[in-house]
């Protein structure tokens, strides 16, 4: 633990992304447009290479940089997901014309920097490292969100995100200081064996709650969610797709690592359970009333943050694995939704439900994949959303949180209405409003179709044959539990 142990062979994704960040930094400074464009083309290749690198190092287990940085199955699993999300976001940004040409290199620089931060976050195993990695990921977002040019809503969203983000960060830092003061150590592994009960160590328990609060902000969990719908609505479609998926993944991995502190369960588990139930119910109820698709997805992600939290409540290996699996499911479903949204909204406008009318006739594949994503978000079989939810509730029920399971299941009945609306407008509504997005040409190019097909297949195939991925996350989460 007390040595640098620098092994470049374990850090392929980090090295590749760091190199990419530096290259993009250069690209943002060169005057020649051609060089910049050529460098931008490197992004997807680098993401693929990084994902490959993460896959290669999947079965390694090592602690680097004096034990602050852990490379294990769980971290590599999340790094692959980050690379996938980054790749999808890059393709989404090609179709969206909301970022002005001169800002493009900067836009990609900060996008990549944010992804780099998340990759670091996946492996961070010490509270200060976690904090730094998280801020690296977040600060880049503060710049990305208002990048939708000439949009007041985007500026408002950016401002909101910064202010809320700063407050959440302050909370987390304060919590961190309390933890350090009471437990005198910041390594997650060393913290795991300590007393976290409110009666035994109130200072530490409070600190942990506050630190987790910072993560809940990223995850947009009720009551830390207020930025979420506004940011989704204000930011460009491709940026929203990014904000909706990857930073949440970062929060989930930190929470999974922190949840090992809560095993066996403490009072904090009960707090988490209540937050999960509140978040699920509130998110679903608010989503019912939305007309803007991205806003609806914003509230839906508040609900999904709650679902993920359900897996952290029991503090068992199965629970953590279920949370990791559901995080993956969430990423896939949302990437798929946003993929379709970006293809329909050719000029980068926000879509409403009416804009989906008649999609099944205009592009059967996009309509079908959007339907798959919608039903997966509800948790209908045979999709990855269903299997993920099944595991979440099984692990929660196993530890006696039966009321939470019932809340989760009853919420399915609430959520079905607005997800069904997605499906309904694609398939059954045929009247096309004047001046809607239907007047725009639909992007049905090869890349658009291939991407939708690939993500759609992933959602279904992982729902039908979840065994291999499940074994991976289960082994990984067993290894991080004390």
């Amino acid at each position, binding site marked *: 633990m007390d040595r640098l142990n620098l092994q470049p062979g374990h850090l392929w994704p980090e090295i590749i992304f760091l190199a990419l960040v530096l290259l993009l930094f250069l690209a943002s400074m060169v005057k020649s447009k051609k060089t910049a464009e050529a460098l931008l083309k490197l992004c997807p290749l680098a993401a693929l290479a990084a994902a490959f690198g993460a896959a290669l190092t999947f079965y390694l287990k090592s602690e680097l940089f004096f034990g602050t940085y852990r490379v294990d199955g769980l971290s590599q699993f999340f790094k692959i997901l980050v690379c996938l999300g980054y790749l999808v976001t890059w393709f989404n940004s090609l179709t969206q014309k909301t970022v002005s040409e001169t800002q493009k290199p900067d836009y990609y620089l900060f996008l990549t920097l944010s992804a780099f931060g998340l990759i670091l976050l996946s492996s961070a195993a010490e509270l200060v490292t976690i904090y730094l990695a998280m801020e690296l990921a977040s600060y880049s977002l503060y710049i990305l969100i208002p990048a939708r040019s000439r949009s007041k809503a985007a500026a408002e969203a950016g401002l909101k995100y910064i202010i809320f983000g700063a407050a959440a960060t302050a909370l987390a830092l304060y919590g961190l200081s309390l933890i350090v003061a009471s437990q005198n150590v910041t390594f997650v592994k060393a913290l795991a064996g300590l007393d976290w009960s409110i009666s035994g160590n109130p200072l530490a328990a409070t600190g942990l709650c506050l630190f987790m609060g910072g993560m809940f902000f990223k995850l947009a969990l009720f009551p830390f969610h207020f930025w979420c719908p506004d940011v989704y609505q204000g930011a460009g479609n491709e940026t929203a797709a990014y904000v909706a998926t990857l930073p949440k993944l970062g929060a989930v991995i930190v929470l999974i690592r922190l949840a090992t502190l809560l095993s066996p369960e403490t009072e904090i588990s009960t707090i988490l359970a209540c937050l999960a139930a509140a978040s699920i119910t509130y998110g679903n109820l608010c989503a019912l009333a939305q007309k803007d698709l991205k806003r609806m997805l914003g509230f839906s992600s508040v609900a999904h943050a709650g679902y993920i939290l359900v897996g952290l409540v029991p503090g068992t290996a199965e629970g953590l694995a279920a949370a990791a699996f559901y995080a993956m499911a969430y990423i896939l479903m949302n990437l798929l939704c946003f993929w379709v949204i970006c293809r329909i909204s050719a000029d980068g406008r926000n879509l409403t439900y009416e804009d989906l009318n008649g999609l099944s006739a205009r592009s059967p594949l996009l309509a079908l994949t959007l339907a798959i994503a919608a039903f997966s978000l509800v948790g209908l*079989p045979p999709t990855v959303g269903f299997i993920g939810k099944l595991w979440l509730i099984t692990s929660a029920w196993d530890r006696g949180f039966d009321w939470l399971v019932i809340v989760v*299941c009853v919420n*399915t009945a609430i959520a079905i209405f607005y997800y069904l609306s997605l499906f309904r407008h694609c*398939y*059954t509504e045929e009247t096309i409003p004047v001046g809607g997005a239907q007047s725009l040409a639909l992007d049905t190019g090869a890349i658009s179709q291939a991407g939708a097909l690939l993500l759609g297949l992933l959602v279904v195939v992982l729902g039908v044959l*979840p*065994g291999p991925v*499940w074994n991976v996350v289960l082994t990984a989460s067993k290894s991080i539990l004390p």
Partner: protein
Amino acid sequence: MDLFNLYPALTVLTFWPLAAALLLAPIKSDLLVRQTTLVISLIEVVLAIPLLGFKSQAGFQFLEVIPWVEGWGLTYALGVDGISILMIWLSILMLPLCVLCSWTYIGRRVKEFHVCLLLMTTACVGVFSALDLVLFYVFWEALLIPMYLMIAVWGGDQKRYASIKFFIYTLAGSTLLLVAIVALRLEGGTFFIPDLMSKTFSFRFQYWIFLAFFLAFAIKVPMFPFHTWLPAAHVQAPSAGSVILAAVLLKMGTYGFLRFSLPLTPAASAYFAPMMIAISVASILYGGAVALGQSDVKKLIAYSSVAHMGFVTLGIFLFSQAGVNGAIFQMLNHGVITGAMFMLVGAVYERSHSREIVKNLGLGKYLPHFMFFWGLFGLASFGFPGTNGFVGEFMVIMAAFQESLCLGLLVIPGALLAAAYILKVTLKMAWGQPASPQGRNWLDLKKKEWAYLVVPAFLVIYLGLAPTGLLNLITPSVKDALATFEAKKNLVNLIQVSSPTGRPQGLIIEEDLSPEAPSASERVPEEGK
């Protein structure tokens, strides 16, 4: 039989329609789509021939068990027994009939319609043959989407209302089913249904599981207070949608009671039997009474379904051989008869463009062949002797009389009501005086219509005159299920005997029993069984 062991009949039957749906993708012409689907559906019927090798014995046959997700104990398990075999045959048989009855009825988005039909068949066969709880749930929910589309795209004026109501109602019912499945997994250690059946759970556990099952199944059946989605869905759905809804979908609820509630929660089933019987009788009487007042033919048949399904649930919760046999037989009958009646309504709708009775008068003169079939299925519907409807209903009523005279007397008006509303509508449609003689130009039944009506007509008469063959198939399984049930339901008697304090009985755990409680004898008769 060795040959059949090599042929995974149930997997093929389940997934052939799904795979075949892909065949439709490149076809452009509507006619070709219809023809291809017809061929696909006939192939499905041919593929089902090995199922005729079903032996009249208890236990699951045509078993296929493959591990699915080993770490979590999920298995891919299919199998049939006497309870499910008839339903599988019914689901498969309905497919070609539905294709035929939509031949001219469905005029737009033809390809999507037939894909929906095929997907539904996959889900139906899957539901009735799944032996793993999660697999069952997958098929159970998978059915909702094509059925929703069928109502929402090809439905009538209020299709949006009806389709959303259908979807949300049935989905809401099954959310707690998932909770029950998870609870059973953790309590029983497996999702595999035959293994779970051999376990005995505590009464408190059974109590809640039964209620969760009840909500899902009662909505699907639908039983009396949960039936409101059915008339809306039936009236708005296209005729093929109504046919599948009536013939197969409703049966999933009663099948669920038989397959899950009775074997997995026997003590709770016995405990709740009085309530179930009461609700069934209410369904019979209420459905019949409301059907009497309808002016829309489809609504009338929809409410008659509520009444008929009441007979089925009544038969199940009498726990007697005659009752359960009659219930299963009545499930098949109702599927055949009501399915056929919806096809007839579809056929006449294509001519008069109205489902109102007053717009379809005097058909005895204009469409005599049509009225012949209508009369036949009508008679079968209210259980006229010699038709299959009589056999099922008679067995259930007989079981009701065996149970108690009062119960039998309560059910009789239900059977009378059925005769009343069917005869009333038939009288009007056959001899009523239409306001305008527009019916003069209508053509009587075409060849295709004959084709899809002759099959159920044959079944109505054949099963009415010779029901023994099919009854022999289902009897061993039912006998076996009831024997296990009788052995395991006693848990509840013990509890009833020992709960003199008047506390809510469901919350009593077996541990705090004291069998020699004094006032026991006064409480037992109250709860009946």
